[in-house]
């Protein structure tokens, strides 16, 4: 991740051989450092390190959480996953949700940030208004949007009919073809504010001189945007991309409240399928295998994004 770049690991380790007596001496002298870390370290070891390992262990077992017996079944859970059509469907839904939702959210956040960065009056008010959806509890957002998408009395149908965009009322969340796009649109509403704040910070970090010299070279506004602003925002874009992809891959709460995975499982994303498998059907081993496949996908996507963006960043 971008964050690791700030630390320089191994440098001291590889340059000189470790002097054990010196190390031991330092450990003794700095014993309280370990004490300071211990509250975090203990919880981290239990709820992160042990947890992840335990999940891997479970993924090789069949277990229904109620009985103490965990039966070792090797790779069977993973093999079953590769044959599970519902899993593929959930994977496809997740890819749709992420593939459309993340770029759209990125673009809308960037547009708002660019508009706000033109030294408009009331920047603070606009920023607050765009940011409120981000802090609104997911449960509440789901309630509001359920109403917006409601078929008979919903706001969206009313205004789309009024402006002649549709001819008859649509059942946004109950129509298998519309449910996923509806969730994606709602996702843009929820995500734009967060992206906007990050882009605003990124924009403020671009030195004014660069624009001045671009102007001297005769670049117009669009050229300055394409060749100065957007390339220099690449690190911000990269950061947003990685965190939103990870976030989008585990969406659950609003889907649970708004569509419950339906209609026809068309909004069952991986996070939701995992919840169903683990906490409704009590197939803990199978759900853990699913979590690990998800982990692998997110890991690969992150590496690909790193490679892809690294080649692009130039200063």
């Amino acid at each position, binding site marked *: 991740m971008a*964050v*690791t770049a*700030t630390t320089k*690991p*191994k440098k001291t380790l590889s340059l000189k051989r470790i002097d054990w007596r010196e*190390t031991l001496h*330092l*450990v003794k002298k*700095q014993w*309280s*450092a370990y004490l*300071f*870390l211990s*509250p*975090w370290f203990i919880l*981290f070891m239990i*709820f*992160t390190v*042990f*947890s*992840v390992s335990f*999940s891997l262990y*479970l993924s090789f077992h069949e277990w229904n959480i109620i009985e*103490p017996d965990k039966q070792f079944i090797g790779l069977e859970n993973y093999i079953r996953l590769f044959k599970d059509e519902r899993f593929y469907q959930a994977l496809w839904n997740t890819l749709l949700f992420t593939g459309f939702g993340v770029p759209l959210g990125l673009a809308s956040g960037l547009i708002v940030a660019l*508009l706000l960065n*033109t030294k408009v009056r009331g920047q603070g008010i*606009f*920023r*607050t208004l765009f*940011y*409120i959806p981000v*802090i*609104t*509890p997911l*449960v509440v957002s789901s*309630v*509001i*949007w359920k*109403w*917006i998408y409601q078929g008979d*009395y919903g*706001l969206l149908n*009313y205004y789309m009919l009024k402006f002649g965009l549709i001819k008859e009322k649509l059942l946004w969340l109950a129509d298998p073809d519309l449910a996923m796009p509806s969730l994606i649109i709602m996702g843009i*509403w929820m995500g734009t504010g*967060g992206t906007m*704040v*990050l882009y605003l*910070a990124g924009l403020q970090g671009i030195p004014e001189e660069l624009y001045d010299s671009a102007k001297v070279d*005769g670049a117009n506004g669009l050229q300055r945007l394409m060749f100065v602003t957007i390339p220099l925002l690449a690190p*911000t874009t990269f*950061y947003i991309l990685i965190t939103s992809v*990870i976030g989008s891959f*585990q969406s659950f*709460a609003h889907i649970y*409240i708004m569509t419950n995975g339906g209609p026809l499982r068309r909004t069952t994303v991986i*996070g939701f399928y995992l919840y169903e498998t*683990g906490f409704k059907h009590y197939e803990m081993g199978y759900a*853990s295998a699913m979590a690990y496949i998800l*982990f692998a996908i*997110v890991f690969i996507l992150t590496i690909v994004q790193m490679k892809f963006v690294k080649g692009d960043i130039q200063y």
Partner: protein
Amino acid sequence: MAVTAKEHELQKVSPSTRLGVNTLLLFLGKLVVYALLIAGAILFTAPWAWMLSASFQPLGDIFNWPPTWWPEHFTLENYRRVLRAAGIGRWYVNSAFIAFSVVVLQIFFNSLAAYTFAKRRFPGRDAIFVFMLGTLMIPGVVFLIPNYVILQHIPLFGENNILGQGGIGWLDSFWGLIVPSAVSVWGIFFIRQYMKSIPDELLDAARIDGATEFRIYWQIALPLSGPALAATAISTFTWNWNDFFWPMLVISNPDLRTVQLGLALFVVQNRTVWDVVMSGSVLATLPVLIVFLIFQRYFIRGIALTGMK
């Protein structure tokens, strides 16, 4: 290319008309920017405004077609009903207790670890730090099942024996919501980045004067990290107040429900009582909204900083 085009233009148009055209363009540009921003702000605020408006309308008016944005028959009845029926008072207390506990624990534990990573030299520091950051890449859903099982087997709680068998451990209790959230890698990382900018001379001077490391942390590093602590406190509070998934898995006793959990279950069970649902939603949002509006300076700066470093 661009330069020659510009020179060409310069020769053709006299300076004064150029100025006039530019001012006009600039003015039109501004107008477009404002129009777009206002349109966007309306679109982004509308869902929210509608919820607020509906929460003050009788059920019949909520179903009006066209929708009424300004309550025609203003009423507080929805709020009275939600306060009476749904037990939201209890949920409020629960949510507040959990969110405050997590904030206090996180501020203390995170900043203690952050100080140690930022300002102390000890064997293994960089290795531990990099390992810690590496775990940020793991998606949260990976932890769901194992952490649920771990909570179930906490020894000597929830009628468990010393081996963690026989009972429910920390499931269906606030312990299970608070303890796993009592530290955060993001929080540690963020505060550490901030503490790195505290000059070492300041800390060394205190060391020479014989101050213990804890005292240096408590009396120098901590007070100097106010903005970072505020930013993490606010985002931790918001996150915990808004969290729904983990409480849903852990809590089954109705008396222990949080606001979000209670509201979500209420929505799922009573699909038609939109009046009560709307006022409940407003009440569930109010605390984070207030915290956000008061502290948004820290909040937005904090989020921006975490992203940039």
